[in-house]
């Protein structure tokens, strides 16, 4: 069934009648990233005001494919279970060349994790759940139909000018987080530009509703007979909605391709019948670009306003949530004086690194999916031909490498005989713990996970111990009998040791907060 859009009411903001006292954080954009940022900050007790020029959730499904890491982040802000319940959990992908299946992959769910590998759920549902959560949160003030018209900054604060149906007003804020999407007006207001590649390739995205028995799988085609010479993707969402992506080529006219009389015949060829309803259609151009820096004084960029990638690989929404993950605890610490402002440089360094990894993966997938004529096409076609007869060649077939969190580069203390999966810079892998999950116990604070030893009380650190289960042994100990992990509020492993060295721990805690 079609999603029923409920407009959220416009409430005349207090700033229209009298100047509001200076805000801590103003977030521009009530999309998934802006709303998640508000909830993340609220975890740390920081109030924020979210401004959006619109009053409904995402029009069209847009980001549909949420990774395990994104689900863990959504879980921390209270909507993870709801997303998993409503979403379509999938793990099998099938790749076809012409009309033959070349290979399939199974993202075998690794036991001992709270969240599945991937869930498909329309962005409008994620936003709906997030808006419910922010409206129930006294620390978040979300204002619909509040359009930001200018952002400036001085030594004391950022100054945000806003237009509403009832008139214009101005807010002062210590920080502004720009989560206003790929075409970010705030980016333009600051005179900043994206750098990177624009691919001369257009894709048609269509959501259709149909009754079908299709399994919950990701189906990808290179050069199918129903869409000669191009690529196609079919992906299932809740409510009998299916996402179809069709490569159009650069000569395609986006306005023409969007029209029903042109879309319907294309879809009929994909699904083999005409018994469906078109829910949403969009045409997009492949881009792999980012801002050089995500932090500009008091204005911080997160999500699509900071970086955009071509969509195969689920790296848009998921990477935006990872921005929120890396920013929230640091910004909260700056605001309440626990950390110097230079800790925001770490956000910039880590997330530009993460963005670059996504950009590289996305550019490579784009090149494989839409090779230039000549040698690029020759190799692409021969990889596909070889993949049919030699299993090793399937690894080269690239229809989008699915998003996994990057491992941040770090020079922190490490003991390399401990398992690689939990090395410093990685997300601390989840594991069952007692009646719950390690991921529920970590997060929001700095944790010292002590396995196989006792550690003395240390200031600023919460110690978590556990009996050693098989999962903890595999993910945290390996062959060692003692392991001590220092884990940041965003569940990133900061440093680790196989022996107790209180001075080293204390030093590593200081590094987390950038206290020198």
């Amino acid at each position, binding site marked *: 069934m079609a999603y029923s859009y409920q407009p959220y009411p416009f409430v005349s903001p207090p700033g229209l009648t009298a100047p509001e006292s200076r805000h801590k954080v103003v977030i521009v954009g009530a999309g998934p990233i802006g709303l998640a940022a508000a909830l993340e900050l609220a975890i740390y007790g920081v109030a924020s005001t979210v401004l959006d020029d619109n009053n409904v959730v995402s029009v069209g499904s847009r980001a549909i494919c949420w990774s395990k890491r994104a689900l863990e982040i959504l879980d921390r802000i209270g909507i993870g279970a709801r997303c998993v319940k409503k979403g379509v959990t999938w793990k099998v992908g099938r790749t076809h060349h012409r009309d033959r299946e070349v290979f399939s992959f199974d993202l075998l769910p690794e036991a001992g994790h709270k969240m599945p590998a991937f869930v498909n759920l329309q962005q409008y549902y994620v936003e709906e759940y997030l808006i419910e959560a922010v409206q129930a949160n006294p620390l978040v003030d979300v204002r619909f139909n509040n359009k930001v018209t200018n952002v400036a900054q001085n030594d004391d604060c950022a100054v945000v000018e806003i237009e509403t149906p009832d008139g214009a007003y101005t807010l002062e804020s210590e920080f502004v987080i720009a989560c206003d999407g790929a075409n970010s007006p705030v980016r333009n207001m600051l005179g900043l530009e994206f750098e990177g590649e624009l691919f001369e390739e257009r894709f048609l995205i269509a959501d259709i509703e149909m009754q079908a028995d299709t399994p919950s799988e990701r189906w990808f085609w290179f050069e199918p007979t129903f869409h000669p010479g191009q690529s196609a993707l079919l992906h299932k969402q809740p409510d009998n909605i299916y996402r179809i992506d069709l490569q159009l080529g650069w000569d395609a006219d986006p306005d023409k391709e969007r029209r029903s009389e042109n879309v319907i015949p294309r879809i009929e060829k994909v699904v083999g019948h005409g018994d469906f309803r078109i829910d949403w259609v969009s045409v997009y151009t492949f881009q792999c670009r980012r801002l050089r820096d995500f932090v500009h004084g008091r204005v911080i960029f997160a999500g699509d306003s900071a970086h955009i990638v071509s969509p195969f690989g689920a790296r848009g929404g998921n990477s935006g949530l990872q921005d929120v993950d890396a920013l929230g605890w640091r910004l909260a610490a700056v605001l309440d004086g626990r950390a110097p402002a230079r800790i925001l440089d770490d956000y910039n360094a880590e997330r530009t690194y993460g963005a670059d990894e996504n950009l590289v993966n996305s550019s490579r997938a784009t090149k494989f999916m839409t090779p230039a004529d000549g040698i690029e096409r*020759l190799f692409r*076609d021969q990889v596909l*031909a*070889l993949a049919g007869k030699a299993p090793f*060649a399937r690894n080269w077939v690239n229809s989008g490498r699915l998003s996994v969190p990057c491992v941040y580069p770090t020079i922190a203390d490490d003991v390399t005989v401990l398992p690689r999966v939990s090395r410093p810079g990685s997300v601390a892998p989840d594991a069952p713990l007692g009646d719950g999950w390690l991921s529920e116990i970590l997060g929001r604070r700095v944790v010292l996970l002590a396995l196989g030893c006792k550690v003395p009380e240390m200031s600023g650190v919460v110690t978590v111990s556990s009996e050693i289960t098989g999962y903890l042994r595999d993910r945290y100990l390996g062959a060692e009998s003692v392991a001590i992990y220092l884990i940041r509020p965003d569940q990133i492993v900061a440093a680790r040791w196989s022996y107790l060295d209180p001075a080293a721990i204390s030093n590593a805690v200081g590094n987390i907060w950038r206290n020198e």
Partner: protein
Amino acid sequence: MTALINTKNLQDHDGFYADLLDTHAGLSEQNSHALNAQLILVLANHIGDRQVLREALSLARQNFG
């Protein structure tokens, strides 16, 4: 010290050369290019060492500008 072997490492060079040409026998130029592409991928996977492959790519590219 390079990872790529730059000295004679194959028994019966002439035999391999003949096999290589025989493998292409009867193919159009376009299909020969396709076969070569597959052959490169097969051999790259077999070699399995990024450093060796980097040096091989660089050696092959020499003098092409």
